[in-house]
């Protein structure tokens, strides 16, 4: 299992995935640093307004980063599993005394290391550069980043499980669609909350259970927002349905469910690989 994990990491190094991610990180952090330096020079806003400006911009950047990370996780997992199964590389490996579940978990672990390392380096790079050049830091950057990583791992697990049966492209597309769908359902949920309209809220809840990625993003968002801003926004009803703000923390049950969800999806993937003809 550890050998499979090791091979997966080597693959991402040799195929220059790691290099590409590293280059992207440099570009991203450099560009963010430059933009925020300009902004803090030229912006005349003060106090809570300035806080709001920086915080909203940073959260939007983190949202885009989350999307990037999700796509990275989804595509690399799909390629790593479906590619090996289709080419016949897996047949030679799985004829060895290794259980298919262990093989899949080795892949998961290797990919998680790559995706997690990219997320932590690039994400903390973003936050650090902003705090350096603009003097603004979100209140709980570590918790926020970890939740963003968790979201990427959830999508990676889904893509991995799909790739035990489907082709790489199909798995990656389905997982990507699921990611956006969860986001849409999350927005419907917010609308339901604002209008206190139970049907909409129910749709949102079902979405949260089926794919808890968006809930994790909202939890991350909450940790990245200054409390003063949240307190302020709570005063306006219109803000409660703003998809770019989380006014309440996610209940712990959401986190627990996300972990269980990942375990279930992985289990389904392992079963499906176990029954596959090679």
């Amino acid at each position, binding site marked *: 299992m550890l*050998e499979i994990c090791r091979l997966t990491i080597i693959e991402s190094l*040799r195929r220059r995935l790691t290099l590409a991610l590293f280059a992207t990180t440099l570009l991203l952090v450099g560009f963010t640093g430059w933009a925020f330096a300009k902004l803090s020079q030229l912006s005349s806003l003060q106090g809570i307004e300035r806080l709001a400006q920086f915080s909203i911009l940073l959260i939007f950047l983190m949202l885009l980063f989350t999307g990037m990370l999700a796509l990275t996780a989804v595509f690399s997992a799909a390629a790593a599993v479906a590619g090996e199964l289709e080419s016949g*590389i897996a047949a030679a490996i799985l004829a*060895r*005394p290794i259980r298919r579940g262990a093989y899949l978990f080795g892949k998961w672990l290797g990919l998680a290391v790559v995706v997690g390392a990219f997320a932590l380096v690039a994400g903390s790079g973003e936050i650090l550069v902003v705090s350096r050049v603009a003097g603004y830091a979100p209140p709980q950057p570590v918790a926020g980043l970890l939740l963003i990583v968790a979201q990427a791992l959830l999508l990676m697990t889904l893509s991995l499980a799909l790739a035990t049966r489907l082709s790489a492209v199909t798995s990656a597309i389905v997982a990507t669609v699921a990611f956006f769908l969860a986001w849409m359902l999350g927005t419907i949920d917010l609308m339901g909350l604002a209008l206190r309209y139970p049907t909409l809220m129910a749709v949102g809840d079902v979405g949260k259970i089926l794919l808890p990625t968006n809930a994790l993003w909202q939890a991350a968002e909450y940790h990245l927002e200054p409390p003063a801003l949240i307190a302020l926004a709570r005063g306006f009803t219109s803000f409660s349905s703003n998809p770019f703000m989380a006014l309440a923390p996610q209940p712990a049950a959401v986190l627990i469910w996300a972990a269980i969800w990942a375990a279930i999806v992985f289990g389904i993937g392992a079963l499906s690989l176990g029954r596959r*003809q*090679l």
Partner: protein
Amino acid sequence: MAHAAAPGRDPDAAIRTDLLEKRYGRRVALHGLSLTVPRGSVFGFLGPNGAGKTTAVKLLLGLVRPTAGEGMVLGGPIGDPSARRRIGYLPELFRYQDWLSAREVLRSHAVLAGLGRERIAAATDSALELVGLEGEGRRRVGAFSKGMQQRLGLAAALIGEPELVVLDEPTSALDPVGRHEVRGIIQGLRDRGATVFLNSHLLTEIEAVCDEVAVVDHGRVIASGRLDELLQARGAEVAVDGLDSAAVARLGGTMAAPGAAIFPDIAESDVPELVAAIVANGGRVYRVTPRKASLEQIFLDWLEVR
């Protein structure tokens, strides 16, 4: 013996299957396959394209699940990971990680096969040497020719001295020299006491190395047995005159041409008696030629008989 044997009859068998069956949807790839491969033998599994050879091998390794029947490999039920520790396998469509070097591929196979850390380097070296890739260990597999990749696959199947080596058409991409070398490798395995299960439709290859063979066609075993028995000289051609065809027929032969009688059921040990009988009937014998069967002829006969 490689014929329909119930499991349990030969506890020392390396492979024993009982009515193993595989269907893909409505298509039957393998009808109830029952065979026993004794330990230490080189077993040739022959058959035309699409006969079910690869399916049988994949069933034995647990890569596909049987739809019916059961089997044992090295004392464990098929698909049992602990038995797979002692099996080396070269798939028909061999592919290894392009981005690794040959040495790294073998290393990872050694690790997965459960070889101890201290044995891995030596095992990798000797496997590379055995297949003639000793100078290529550091090169990326992606830059290998097809034949070199098959050699690498062979090395992966041989690493760690497995008790059972399953080779699915091991020479399909090899040049004549390579084919000859594979023969040597298989003989080396036999000398070491390993069992070899060899899938092939190259009859000369089978003829040169196998102790036992089974012929499969359309998913059924249509013939099997010890190769030396199958190939045993059977029948004799006798150059003779002074006998009419009725006399030849009485002795169990037929006149193929004037002066040439064929006795199809005569074993080599019966030749002196046959000659004596011909002489006693007034015939004059000029020459007796044993008729040696080739596996190819037998193979074609079998496929026709079915």
